[in-house]
């Protein structure tokens, strides 16, 4: 915990001081009132009452001021800590790769970033206050009690020792239950995220009622865990109050006996009891403290699970720093084998090279590893050393930003952000002017469509570009890659939703751009591969064929089969 507070030591200590002063002022008030009683029997004067009243009002003002101060300082500190943790969390997320995001649910991450951090913030504010109150007030009262009567104090404190066990017992349980509650909240969040994202699909499958029922069971689970936590909290508070009560009864009984036996005076006993009464609040504060603290700790653990996660893909310690951004790029893959975790290899002994100015086509059955290969090339997935080289240098030796600056990548699934078309297309370099943006759009055969839109480039897209057609989305991502204009272009099945006519226009308009670029085009349609200088056929993670279209046809292998099938189908279609 301290590591988060460290930065705000000053705020922290000032607020503790203010808290101390609040407690102190509050202790003084009964004293002054006591003074009034003491002097009342004698000569009460007009002036005396006025002064006492003013004194109390003054103390009231200082309580007001110090309360204000501790709140302002401590809660400000906790809010700063909250801000830092959330910021750090996002910062960390930005460094994680698909190895991480492949395993985590968006809703879960969101829950941690909002809900868990809220609990942490409470721990750093009210959690600290409760602990402080419990300790300071408890010790002060204990001091009073001890200075008053040691024996009574021992009697009074003996049941309080039970408290230790109570604390230990409850701490563990509240912690565990808090983890459960937070975990169920994550599930709830994940569920909602998923169902709202897939809302259209769910509607088309007529599943509104069933999803409601499933949601009910998810929230029911959350409710159950919360109620269990609530029950244990209720038990904690009730137990603490009861322990103080036992101590009270004990003192009355033993003290009463002492009074009867003439050991103590009645007045002393009454006074002592009133001190014991002051113990109530610190004890209750312990209950609060345990509660807030354990919830906060559980949440902190959950957040630190993320912030402590070591990113798999990082900048190398001694990166290769190219003198200037290379104009061209030769790509070489050497004997690359890859698998997800322990699973069977997705790619096996893949070797491939793309020279500047060359366009290589990649074709292969679904799940044959094409996208995986491309993700490895761009280091979205981790590859071993000495497997992939850009301009002769192992890609693991590049800084990530340098490496990615070399690649214009059109992913298989078109992903757009919910902002304007302009921002989406000029995503890499926002400083580009409209002309450049329109030029890229023209190359992607979208300029006509955009011009027809009333707001033109300022048209706002929905999330993932929902208000575009499938082909428009895909072309938007192509335009985005064109504007990035890196030496290496990757098209991962990027023409799948585009008609042949449009596809031809786009590829033709890109031909001049590709003159000295290395290009990798993945496709299922042979017609898309017609611009490739060389075609590679991937099957179950292995390269089974490689050559020009003509060579491959002559080889009468896998490619020939694909070609024939597509051609045959066309012919069939004609009949």
């Amino acid at each position, binding site marked *: 915990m301290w590591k988060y507070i460290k930065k705000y030591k000053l705020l922290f200590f000032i607020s503790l001081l203010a808290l101390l002063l609040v407690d102190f002022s509050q202790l003084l008030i009964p004293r002054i009132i006591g003074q009034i009683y003491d002097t009342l029997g004698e000569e009460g004067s007009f002036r005396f009452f006025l002064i006492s009243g003013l004194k109390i009002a003054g103390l009231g*003002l200082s309580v007001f001021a110090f309360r204000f101060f501790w709140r302002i300082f401590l809660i400000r500190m906790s809010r700063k800590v909250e801000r830092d943790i959330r910021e750090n969390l996002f910062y960390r997320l930005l460094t994680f790769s698909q190895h991480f995001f492949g395993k985590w649910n968006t809703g879960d991450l969101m829950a941690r970033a909002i809900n868990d951090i809220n609990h942490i913030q409470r721990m750093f504010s009210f959690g600290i206050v409760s602990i402080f109150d419990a300790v300071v007030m408890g010790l002060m009262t204990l001091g009073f009690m001890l200075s008053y009567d040691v024996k009574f104090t021992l009697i009074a404190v003996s049941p309080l020792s039970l408290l230790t066990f109570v604390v230990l017992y409850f701490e563990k349980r509240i912690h565990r239950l808090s983890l459960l509650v937070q975990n169920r909240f994550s599930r709830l969040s994940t569920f909602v995220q998923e169902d709202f994202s897939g809302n259209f699909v769910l509607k088309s499958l*007529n599943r509104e009622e069933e999803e409601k029922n499933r949601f009910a069971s998810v929230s029911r689970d959350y409710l159950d865990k919360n109620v269990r936590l609530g029950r244990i909290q209720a038990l904690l508070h*009730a137990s603490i109050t009861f322990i103080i*009560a036992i101590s009270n009864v004990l003192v009355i009984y033993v003290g009463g006996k002492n009074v009867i036996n003439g050991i103590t005076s009645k007045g002393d006993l009454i006074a002592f009891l009133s001190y014991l009464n002051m113990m109530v609040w610190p004890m209750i504060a312990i209950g609060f403290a345990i509660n807030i603290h354990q919830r906060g700790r559980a949440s902190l653990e959950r957040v630190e699970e993320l912030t402590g996660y070591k990113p798999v893909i990082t900048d190398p310690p001694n990166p290769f720093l190219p003198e200037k951004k290379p104009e061209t790029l030769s790509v070489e893959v050497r004997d690359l084998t890859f698998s997800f975790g322990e699973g069977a290899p997705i790619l096996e002994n893949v070797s491939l090279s793309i020279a500047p100015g060359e366009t290589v086509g990649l074709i292969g059955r679904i799940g044959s590893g094409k996208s995986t290969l491309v993700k490895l090339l761009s280091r979205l997935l981790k590859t071993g050393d000495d497997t992939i080289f850009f301009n002769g240098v192992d890609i693991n030796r590049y800084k990530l930003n340098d490496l990615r600056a070399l690649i214009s990548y059109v992913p298989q699934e078109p992903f757009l952000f919910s902002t304007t078309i302009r921002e989406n297309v000029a995503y890499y370099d926002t400083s580009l002017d409209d002309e450049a943006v329109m030029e890229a759009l023209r190359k992607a055969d979208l300029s006509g469509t955009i011009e027809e839109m009333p707001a033109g480039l300022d048209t706002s897209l929905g999330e993932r570009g929902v208000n575009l057609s499938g082909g428009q989305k895909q072309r938007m991502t192509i335009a985005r890659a064109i504007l990035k204009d890196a030496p290496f272009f990757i098209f991962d099945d990027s023409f799948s939703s585009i008609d042949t006519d*449009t596809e031809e226009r786009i590829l033709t308009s890109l031909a001049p751009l590709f003159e000295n670029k290395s290009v990798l085009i993945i496709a299922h349609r042979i017609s898309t591969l017609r611009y490739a200088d060389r075609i590679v056929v991937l099957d179950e993670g292995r390269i089974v064929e490689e050559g020009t279209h003509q060579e491959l046809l002559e080889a009468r292998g896998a490619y020939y089969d694909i070609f024939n099938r597509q051609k045959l189908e066309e012919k069939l279609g004609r009949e």
Partner: protein
Amino acid sequence: MRRFAGSFDEKKRKFDIKLVFWLLSYVKEMKLLMGVAVIFLLLGAMLPIALPEVIQRAFDIYIPQGDIHGLFVIAGILLGINAALFFIQYLQVYIMTFLGQRIMYNLRLDIFSHIMRLPKRFFDKNPIGRIMTRVTSDVEALAELLQSGLVLIISESIMLVGILVFLLFKNWVLTLVTLLGTIPLLLLGMTVFRKKITVIYREMRSLVARINAFLQESIVGMDIIQLFNRQKRDMKRFQSLNESYYKTTIRALIVNGTFFPFISFLSIFAKAFIIWFGGVQILKMQLTTGQLAAFLIFIEMFFKPLRELSQSYNIFQAAMAASEKITSIMDEPESVVYSVRNGFTGPLDGTIEFCNVWFAYDEENWVLKDVSFKIEKGETVAIVGQTGSGKTTIINLIGRFYDIQKGKILVDGVDIKEWDISALRRKMGIVLQDVFLFSGNVRENISLYNEEISLDEIREIVRFVNADKFIDKLPEKYETLIMERGKALSVGQRQLLSFARTLTYRPAVLILDEATANIDSETEKYIQEATLRMTEGRTAIIIAHRLATIKHAHRIMVIHRGELREAGTHDELIRRKGIYYDLYQLQYKDQESPGA
């Protein structure tokens, strides 16, 4: 389904009462438990008052008499009362938690099912992250009010009134004087406080929603952010959102930080005031010291519930801000499709007819212009056309995800607006262009959690679409978790699964929107054969850019810029030498002379 009545306006606050009523409608269901909780709370507050009485007896009677046995009895009674208190307190907190959680549960369910029934248009326009907030954080923000605030407000108010009456009996002059000295200040404080804090809380809720939306999108699009080296810029954007949130919380802090100490200051101020005023009265012999001392204790009893109430007042304001957000989404009208009463329930036969249909997503940007066609039962029709020409839109209309502006759509001769929506969609199998899978396992994604569909049936369908090959290779076969949106699968594999999912429900009308776009031609061939068998005697609509995909279609419709330009069999269209002919030539030519 409870709906928040009346138009909702973000800027006006006079709807507070309505918000309260809306919340109370949820509380009403729980009124019994609520009553029990209040009683327990009052009991828990009253019982301790009895304690001093009992202790008094020990000091006044048994100790002076030296009656140890009597003292023991007193100790026993004290212990008994405390034990009772233990149970009361335990039950009270427990019931309050249960109550609050239960109400939140009901609320969540209502919000969720309401959102699920909002039209597609709503989801087109609003970020998922923001919509999520309404079900997650915003409801969570009500927790404090529902769990303890509400019961507290009720019981503390009762106590406040009780004590006030008691004080008036004791000494009405002092009471009135104290009240006159403090209440106006209190009211003033509360009014100023409310004015400031509501604005801030509202802003906080909006910011949480915006942070959520930003997070959602960033996480989902993380690979794009990284590939385009956008980390720094996005970090900045997040920082600025986070910073605004921080600043808003600090503003709330300053308001709160002034208000609460102000209330405790008032209670001390009242004491000071009484000492001065009472002292004067003592000097005038109108009051005894004992009375003054007692009154000082009572005045403390008066301020305790007042302090609690002022805390609750804050909780209440925070909850109102959240309720405001929630009710504003509850006010969004549900999709009209659900309001069809006694709709036509089919069974769906499969004739689909468009009569002069005009449609635009926004206002006047016609996406479909005067489209008319009729698809007979059992017919397989292909729709082709350039990207963005309106093919998917036609599908969206057949499933009634949007309503048309002009014209008529008839399904089985019945206006689509008169169909019972679930009867219509249940038998309509749509494979959407944008594949969406859920994070469960393979089996669940095909059966969609329907227990009635056996694994054998699933196997059969999977074999049907040729997905068995890859599923059998997955580490845990049908039980393999495919993660969010199916990201542990290749895109083509996902498409196959979504295909299988649609077939599972044996639709009467099969609609395929680019269902094989990301699938290799070998696999596609199998699927085509399967579809052919599937569609026998059923209506099928197939959209595809690869003309090979539509080779089995009986009829082809060519959509161009939202208009139906050509329709007929393949041969007819080829002979016509129109748009279709051009498309065909282009694809065919490529097959013949690649590497151009």
